[in-house]
């Protein structure tokens, strides 16, 4: 199953006028891998992520996501990915069930599929009895977990998570990562950005962007060894500070 790469990026370049947001990126992510995508604000993370999700066109380069070309088959790409960000949440004025039904409908799931997945995902979160509650009555940390469940509802090949745990308490944050591990164990590729450096350690491989380029791409263990750092926080500071000073 790991024969086909989930994400393949060759010579990705994205320019805005004279400004080079992504400068010749090359990397691939395997199916079922948890891939951390780090970088300072303005390093080009969001730009690259938008291109991978088919929301923005690269200036040049060959990018395949879930086996489809993002420039030529963006619709196919969108069908096979899930997306969740801290900013994008579910609808507060709908019940949990209604949220699932709506987003399931978007991805073209049948009524029975929606029903089954809703029960399955809510049970996993321990919210099986709350499906009729309004989302607004659910605590903040749980909403993130719900949003993640909705993002993987259609069993995408890849799920993109943009700072999914911002502002979440440490216990809920870990529960969130349990969900990520479970999804990865089911074969879903997880592509995640975060500002929490301890979370970088949870990833199988980490890519650190600096000034539009990939400055480092390796397992957290190798990165720490190579940069003589005690933890990922130090690795990040060493790499990102290099340019800002």
């Amino acid at each position: 199953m790991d024969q086909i790469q989930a994400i393949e990026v060759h010579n990705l370049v994205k320019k805005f006028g004279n400004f080079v947001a992504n400068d010749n990126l090359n990397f691939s992510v395997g199916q079922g891998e948890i891939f951390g995508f780090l970088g300072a604000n303005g390093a080009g993370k969001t730009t690259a992520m938008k291109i991978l999700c088919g929301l923005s066109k690269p200036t040049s380069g060959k990018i395949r996501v879930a086996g489809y070309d993002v420039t030529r088959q963006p619709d196919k790409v969108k069908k096979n990915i899930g997306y969740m960000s801290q900013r994008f949440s579910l609808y507060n004025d709908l019940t949990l069930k209604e949220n699932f039904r709506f987003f399931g409908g978007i991805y073209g799931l049948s009524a029975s599929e929606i029903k089954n997945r809703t029960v399955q995902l809510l049970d996993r979160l321990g919210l099986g009895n709350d499906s009729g509650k309004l989302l607004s009555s659910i605590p903040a940390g749980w909403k993130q977990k719900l949003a993640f469940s909705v993002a993987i509802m259609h069993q995408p090949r890849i799920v993109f998570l943009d700072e999914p745990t911002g502002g979440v308490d440490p216990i809920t944050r870990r529960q969130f990562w349990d969900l990520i591990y479970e999804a990865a164990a089911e074969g879903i590729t997880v592509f995640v950005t975060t500002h929490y450096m301890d979370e970088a350690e949870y990833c199988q491989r980490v890519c650190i962007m600096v000034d539009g380029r990939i400055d480092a791409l390796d397992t957290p263990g190798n990165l720490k060894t190579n940069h003589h750092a005690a933890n990922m926080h130090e690795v990040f500071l060493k790499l990102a500070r290099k340019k800002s000073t």
Partner: protein
Amino acid sequence: MKQIAVDIRDIRKSYTGIKALQGINIQINSGELFGFIGPDGAGKTSLFHILTSLVIPDSGSATVAGYDTIHDYREIRKIVGYMPGKFSLYQDLTVDENLKFFAGIFRTTIHEHFELYKDIFAQLEPFRKRKAGQLSGGMKQKLALSCALVHKPQLLFLDEPTTGVDAVSRTEFWEILQRIKYMGITVIVSTPYMDEAALCDRVALMNKGSIMAVNSPENIVRSFGKNLYAVKSEQMFPLPGLLATIEHTKAVYRSGEYIHYLNEKDDFDPVLIEIYLRACGHGMIQVHQIAPSIEDCFMVLMQQSKAQKAA
């Protein structure tokens, strides 16, 4: 003797049935760098709104520099600098225009207290004619901080200034806050990032509208009371579940590349972990005792308060 800058007495506040603050009591000293640490929904912003006189509490009282937040709100507004959680400068005005405007409403000029923020402003210098909306995240924070300092406040309230900001800019920002503190300004910050607690003189750990602990970061760590072990093996995924089955386990959770393990028994021998894991077929086992971080303390306190509530 230390002077009290902020005195919070039994503040309570509810919004449409949700108890945002459930009886907060804290004294903050003059010249202190004080941090409110807690996740979203802890009540940090509600408390800042009350202290900056923007919101009236349901009950309880608070003074800032000796002024009551309800009756003497005019006095408070003259002496505090406030940076709300949301970026709140005028995006369509340039760096210079924003600064000039905020100087104007505090009846001062950019130059009067320039020495306070000249270091911060030096980094903004190349972008003075740029509109605030077009600055990068880190630069926006620096501009907002400059604007909050323009009138040389006695107290500075910063609500989640580093949320969504990358680790490098965050570190820089905290270095700036240290400098501001040494200029004699009481700095009161809130943040959801537990690791930032170590940079404060004292912190209050907040969760769900309550204070779980108030102390210096060192003392909070010291009061952890139990031995904390970091565990690692070649099979990280099943490790937490396995560790949880050890007798008298109090807490098991991921932390970076390790699993943190806590046992209820004071005389717990960590060699047990190694023996047990080896018996379960794990290799490359590492177990060592570590000093708990603020995050470790926070989680233990969260569990305790949950247990108390259940009881």
